[in-house]
């Protein structure tokens, strides 16, 4: 039985036509309702006037003016958490420095980004992070080149706290009881250095590179995945990102969407393929191409950013401005594309 024979109750109307004719065009193009009209917000940054839309941040205003502002914990597709403080600015009339990435611009605000206070705050943040964390891959996707440039710009000297303390043994930091942190003797700079956690075939966690920016926690939780496999455990310098009871990922709630990798600013979370190629000395970004295409799996249509080296897909990211999923993927899009690499099977 074909579609046109369906029904048989076609009083005054031929269902047949529905199957043969396209619906009539609407006379107006259907669009989303316009938001209420709002006045732009006018403020000054470093004595230069700028206007932003209501709800936009000081960081948006800075970027509109081309004022370079370092960020680590900020991502356009995550809720700001104000963890890293490297973007702080001075707002006239306010006692404390304000995180540019989350503070909303207000009419008449007078913002300064190059005062001594701002420069000192950013310098110390960079020194404290640099002395205790491996920042070798931090901020590498930023337009201004990331950490090395910031260190120089703010005259930061992470070595001034002394030589780094010895790295922790595997699992040692995870076992530290909350509230039992010892007072350092000052002879060496505290460090989060520890062995890389490799407990599954898809991605590794190198918490020697973790600055506790919380982005992975947000992506795993209410900003993208709603899986809640990880959270911050411990307090003070012992604080760390952890699965429940520090269980290995395969026994945790992790669903391997890799959205934590997508937002990690320091390379602490990394495809296992990239980790192993770096270890073997074969990771070569200058020999890689980056191509945007569409995921071959379901009908959502997520944009994939394929990093390809020697015709092998070595990493999959997604641009945060993708109109479909804002840069977030599932396990199939993130890791399930390796079938095209299986040249012997093809």
């Amino acid at each position: 039985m074909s579609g046109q024979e369906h029904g048989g109750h076609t009083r005054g109307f031929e269902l047949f036509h529905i199957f043969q004719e396209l619906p009539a065009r609407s006379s107006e193009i259907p669009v989303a309702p316009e938001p209420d009209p709002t006045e732009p917000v006018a403020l000054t940054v470093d004595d230069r006037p700028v206007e932003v839309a209501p709800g936009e941040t000081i960081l948006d205003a800075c970027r509109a003016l081309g004022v370079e502002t370092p960020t680590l914990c900020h991502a356009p597709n995550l809720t700001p958490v104000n963890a890293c403080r490297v973007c702080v600015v001075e707002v006239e009339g306010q006692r404390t420095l304000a995180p540019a990435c989350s503070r909303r611009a207000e009419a008449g605000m007078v913002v300064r980004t190059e005062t001594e206070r701002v420069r000192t705050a950013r310098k110390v943040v960079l020194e404290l992070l640099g002395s205790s964390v491996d920042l070798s891959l931090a901020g590498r996707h930023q337009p201004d080149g990331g950490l090395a440039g910031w260190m120089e710009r703010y005259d930061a000297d992470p070595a001034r706290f002394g030589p780094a303390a010895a790295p922790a043994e595997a699992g040692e930091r995870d076992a530290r009881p909350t509230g039992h942190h010892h007072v350092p003797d000052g002879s060496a700079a505290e460090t989060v250095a520890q062995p890389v956690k490799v407990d599954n075939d898809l991605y590794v966690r190198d918490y020697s590179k973790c600055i506790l920016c919380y982005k992975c926690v947000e992506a795993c939780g209410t900003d993208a995945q709603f899986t809640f496999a990880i959270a911050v455990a411990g307090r003070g310098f012992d604080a760390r990102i952890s699965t429940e009871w520090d269980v290995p990922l395969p026994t945790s709630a992790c669903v391997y969407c890799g959205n934590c990798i997508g937002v990690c600013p320091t390379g602490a979370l990394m495809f296992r393929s990239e980790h192993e190629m770096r270890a073997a000395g074969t990771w070569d970004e200058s020999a890689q191409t980056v191509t945007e295409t569409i995921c071959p799996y379901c009908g959502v249509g997520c944009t994939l950013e394929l990093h390809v080296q020697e015709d092998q897909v070595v990493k999959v990211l997604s641009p945060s401005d993708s109109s479909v999923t804002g840069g977030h993927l599932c396990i199939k899009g993130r890791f399930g594309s390796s079938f095209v690499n299986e040249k012997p099977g093809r």
Partner: protein
Amino acid sequence: MVDPRRTGSAEWADLWLGLDVGTDIALANAVGREIIAAGLANLDFIRHATVDYDAYAATVEKYTLAEAERITGVPADAIRELAHAYATAPRAMLCWTLGITEHVVGVDNVLSLIALSLLTGHVGRYGSGLAPLRGQNNVQGGGDMGALPDRLPGFQHVERDDIRARFDSAWGVTVPPKRGWNLSLMFEAMERRDLRALWVIGENPAQSEADTHRTVSLLEGLDHLVVQDLFLTKTAQLADVVLPAAAAWSESDGTVTNSERRVQRVRKAAEPPGEARDDLAIIFDLARALGSDWGTPRAEAVWDELRSLSPLHAGMSYARLEAEDGLQWPCYDETHPGELFLHSRLWEQPRRGHPAPFVPVEHVPPVDPLDDDFPIRLTTGRRLESYNTGVQSAGYRSPLHRGESLDLSPEDAERLGIADGERVRVVSRRGSVEAPARIDPVLRPGLTFMTMHFPDDVAVNNLTIDTFDPKSGTSEFKATAIRIEKLPAGAPSA
């Protein structure tokens, strides 16, 4: 959330209606009846934009809340709550997947949902509507491009002389004036020997179709089978000729269309291995071998030809698709922004085009009945990390892969004396498989679940029934009657 299983998504739902498999129409009709009885129907919209409301109201009248509870197993209060929440919401969408369509009444299931949107006016407005969530990255685009038995590109009907004339003159050939066969009808034609040669592109019917034994014997009975695929699939192993293909999404250029009708660019990121070639190059070569020179294969040129013939796609140049992160059809010309939602014409004064019909439909139980020999319902579906018959997804090393299993409720496991992980035999009227049992509280007593992701290990489609919806051609994968047999102690674990 309406689902026989209490899935992860159901855990997040405000309300979960765990209906019995194959009772969707009874539930939808009861929701419709309750909306009417409670005075919540949007009568202004119904008068303005629809026809056949009276026939619909008469049909759903017998689907009282009590009757629906009896048929569906869902408490009447929950059905009432759903009806009132849906009808009174400022915006509401109905989204569905294969649980609605993989039934012998798949089209009727959809019609019963369309009726709810017409009843409430939850269609043709921003934030309200009907959305089949597509399971494959270009299943929408395939239909849009005319890979349907009765359509030319852009959903234009092949049996309309005026439409066909345009294609005739553009292509310089006479397009056959009759619709073709869908997949299920093709297998029937193979049985009659009316279909004797088949060219399969990127599909693995030897494992994906219901009733594997019948499918494979029909494929083996063909005079000539050509398979074009990335891998030597089980279907390709039956072929006379295998054409190795490039991966369409990463080794060639083109477009796909996602579930929201967004046409998106796919781009070549790597060279295909060995002798594998772009699908387009293979098809062009075949055309040349058949005596028709189409020139040099170029994805954008093919797309531009499509734009010249499909009004829905006319405005979507490659340059715009690039600049605007894809465009949603309809997009009638280069200044048209594409449309966020469809059917706003139904709200215009006066209404444009033909009215939307209510099509009353009745509950019909699944074709594979439960009885004393086959007392348990098996429904098949997908798991997050896997994909269909596993051709793409079986290879990557996912910690979530756990192989095939017969998932059953704790209650059934206890009643049948089956331990978690114990291998059992699953028997349907068509065949049997062995698989480990997995106790899963997501399932209710009497309901079991399997996937089709690991068909080399467990050929689940040996069990499923190939009776199909005559309107869509889709088999009733979602409702198989089975029994579970314990294996004799000491049986070899195959």
